[in-house]
C-alpha cells in the first residue's frame, strides 16, 4: 500500500511491500529495507539497506522536518492520501518493480484469486516480498519459474478476467 509525502512541491510515493522482519519500502523505484533503530525526543536512528543514519526529526501538524548529515529536508504531510494499490491495479499483468529472484508460487495456472490474494513471493535486496493480486481474476500464466531471476519490469503473473458468476 502506498503513502505519499511532498518535498519541494513533488510528491514522493512510498510503497510498503513488506512488514516483517523489516519494513520493505519502495521509494524512487527501488526497494529499501528499513529498520527503525531509535527515536527519542527528536533524535532518530534508522538503517536503510545496509547503512545507518541518525539525525533530528521535527513533526508538526502539517510538516515533517529532517536534519540529516548536515542537510535539512522539509516534507509536507498529506493527510489521508494513503491508499491501496488495488484501486490502480486493474491490469492483467503483474510486473516486478525491481530485479530479483522468484522464491515461490502461491497459485497455479487456473487458480481463481480474489483481490489481494498472494500470487508469488520474490526476493530483492535480501528482502522477501509477497506480490498480491491487483484485482480479482484467474491466473492465466506464471512467467517466472521458482528459483529463476528476473529484471525490473518483467511480467511475473498474467491474470485473466474472473469466471462468470453463476446463477
Amino acid at each position, binding site marked *: 500500500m502506498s503513502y505519499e509525502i511532498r518535498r519541494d512541491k513533488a510528491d514522493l510515493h512510498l510503497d*510498503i*511491500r513488506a*512488514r516483517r522482519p523489516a519494513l520493505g519500502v519502495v521509494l524512487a523505484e527501488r526497494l529499501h529495507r528499513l529498520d527503525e533503530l531509535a527515536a527519542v525526543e527528536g533524535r532518530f536512528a534508522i538503517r536503510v539497506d545496509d547503512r545507518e543514519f541518525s539525525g533530528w526529526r*521535527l513533526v*508538526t501538524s502539517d510538516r515533517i*522536518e529532517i536534519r540529516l548529515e*548536515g542537510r*535539512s529536508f522539509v516534507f509536507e504531510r498529506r493527510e489521508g492520501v494513503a491508499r491501496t494499490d488495488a484501486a490502480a491495479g486493474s491490469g492483467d499483468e503483474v510486473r516486478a518493480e525491481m530485479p530479483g529472484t522468484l522464491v515461490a508460487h502461491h497459485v497455479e495456472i487456473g487458480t481463481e484469486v480474489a483481490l489481494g490474494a498472494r500470487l508469488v513471493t520474490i526476493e530483492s535486496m535480501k528482502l522477501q516480498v509477497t506480490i498480491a493480486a491487483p484485482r480479482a481474476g484467474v491466473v492465466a500464466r506464471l512467467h517466472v519459474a521458482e528459483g529463476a531471476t528476473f529484471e525490473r519490469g518483467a511480467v511475473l503473473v498474467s491474470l485473466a478476467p474472473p469466471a462468470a458468476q453463476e446463477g
Partner: protein
Amino acid sequence: MAFFNKVLVANRGEIACRVIRTLRRLGIASVAVYHDEDRKAPHVGLADEAVRLEGKVPSGAYLDGAQIIAAAKAIGAAAIHPGYGFLSENAGFAEAVAAAGLIFVGPHAEVIRLMGDKIRSRDFAAAHGVPVAPSVTEDDAGEDFVAKAAAIGFPLLIKASAGGGGKGMKIVRKPEELAENIGLAKGEAGRYFGDPRVFAERLVEQPRHIEVQVLGDGTGNVIHLYERECSIQRRYQKIIEEAPAPNLPAGLRERICAAAVRLASAAQYRNAGTVEFILGADGEFYFLEMNTRLQVEHPVTEMITSLDLVEVQLRIAAGQGIGHAQEDIRITGHAIECRICAEEPDHGFRPATGRIGLLALPSGEGIRFDGGIVAPQAVTPAFDSMLAKLIAWGEDRDTALARLERGLAATAVMGVPTNLDYLLRVVGHPVFRVGTLDTGFLERFAADIAAPDGDDETAIAAALAAALGDPLFRDLAFGVPEPHASIGGWRN
C-alpha cells in the same frame, strides 16, 4: 577589582547573552532589557534582573535611549553596555548616558561622530598616514577632473557625490572611455539626485575585507589583537569570518595592523574597536571605516588570543586601562565563525520566520556556540535574522575547518528555515578550504554552492525517516489494519 557593581545590557539576542555571561563570570550584577515580544527570550532569564521596555515596535524599544537610561538609573546600574547594533554607535545616546551620570561602555561621543561620517573619517585617516583609496573629487579638481582622475590609474570607479545604490556609478577600464563615462555618470547623478557632481576612485577588484581589532584606553594608548578576514560576504553582509586571515604575508599583516593602531591612537580611541580595510590582489590596502563597538565576529579574535573582549571593554570603561601590552598578545591557532541566520538561501536568501521547535547545539573541543535562542521560541520579522554564531578553533586552519564542519552538522535549528546547509556547502568548497578568499567568492561560486538535487542516499533516508515520523505511515507499516494487510506485505 570588580569594574562595576551592576551593568545594564542595552541589547537582545545572542550578543546580550554573550555580554551577560561575562558579567556573571566577573561577579557583576547584570540587568537585561526586553520588549514584551522578547519576554521569554534567553537574555531575560540569563540576567540577574530584567526591565521591560515599552514600545509599539519591538525594535523601537531597544532604540529608546531615554527609556533605557531611566531604567538603568532606577535599577542602580553604573554602566550601560550597548552590544552591537541598536544604540551602540549612537553618539547622542553615548552623551546622554554620560550626562545621566552613568558610564557608556564605548568610546567618547565625539569619536563615534567622527568615525560615523564617511568623508570625515576618510580625511582623518589620510591625515594620519592611513592609506585611503586614491580618489579625486570634481569640486577639488575643477577643469582638470578628467586628467586628474586618469592619473589615479585604471580601473576607476566614478561615483555620484550625492549618490548611492549604484546610480551614477561607472566602472572605467580604459583611458579613452573616461571622459564619456564621466559625462554619463554626471547625467545619471543629475537625474537621480538632482546633483550632477561625481568623484573618481581607484577600483579595487576582487578585494579582500581585512579588519583589525584594536583596544584603546582613551589617552592614545592603543594595541591591536591582529586581524580578521571577513571576505565571505553577500551584499556587504558578512557571513563567515576568521582569524588570522589565511595566506596573509607577515609583512603585510604588520603594516595593516600598524595602520589601524595609528588611526585609533590619533583618535584617542577608548574601547574595543575595529578598523576595516579592503586589500587588493596587489597587496595595496585602503581604509574603509572604523566600527566603534564590539563586532559580531569578535569571538574569532577571542579564540586566538584567549582574551575576553567584553571584559577588556568593561575594564577600559571603568578607567582601569587596557590591562594588556602589545607584546603580551600572541596568536594561538586559528578560528572561524559562521553566522546562523533565519533565511532561505535556496530562495534568494529571503528572511524566514517560524517557531523553533527543535534546537540541538554542538559541543566538543574547540567549539563555541554563541546563541540567544531556545525552543520553543518564535522567530519574527521584528528583529535581525541572525540567530546564533558557531565558532570553531583549531591548532591550524584545517583543524578549525574540520571542527566547524562537524559542529555545523551537529547543529539543528528546526521549525524555521536557516542557512546551516548553505554554510556547510561554503565551508566545504575547495577554494574556501585553501583560503583563497575575496568578497566576490559567494557570487563567483554560487553554482557550486547551490543546493544539491535530492535524490541521493541521504535524501532517500530523510524521506524514510520523515515517513516514520508520521502516524499515518506508522499505521500502515505497523498497524496492519485489514484489508490493507492483504495487499503486499508479509504473511505468516
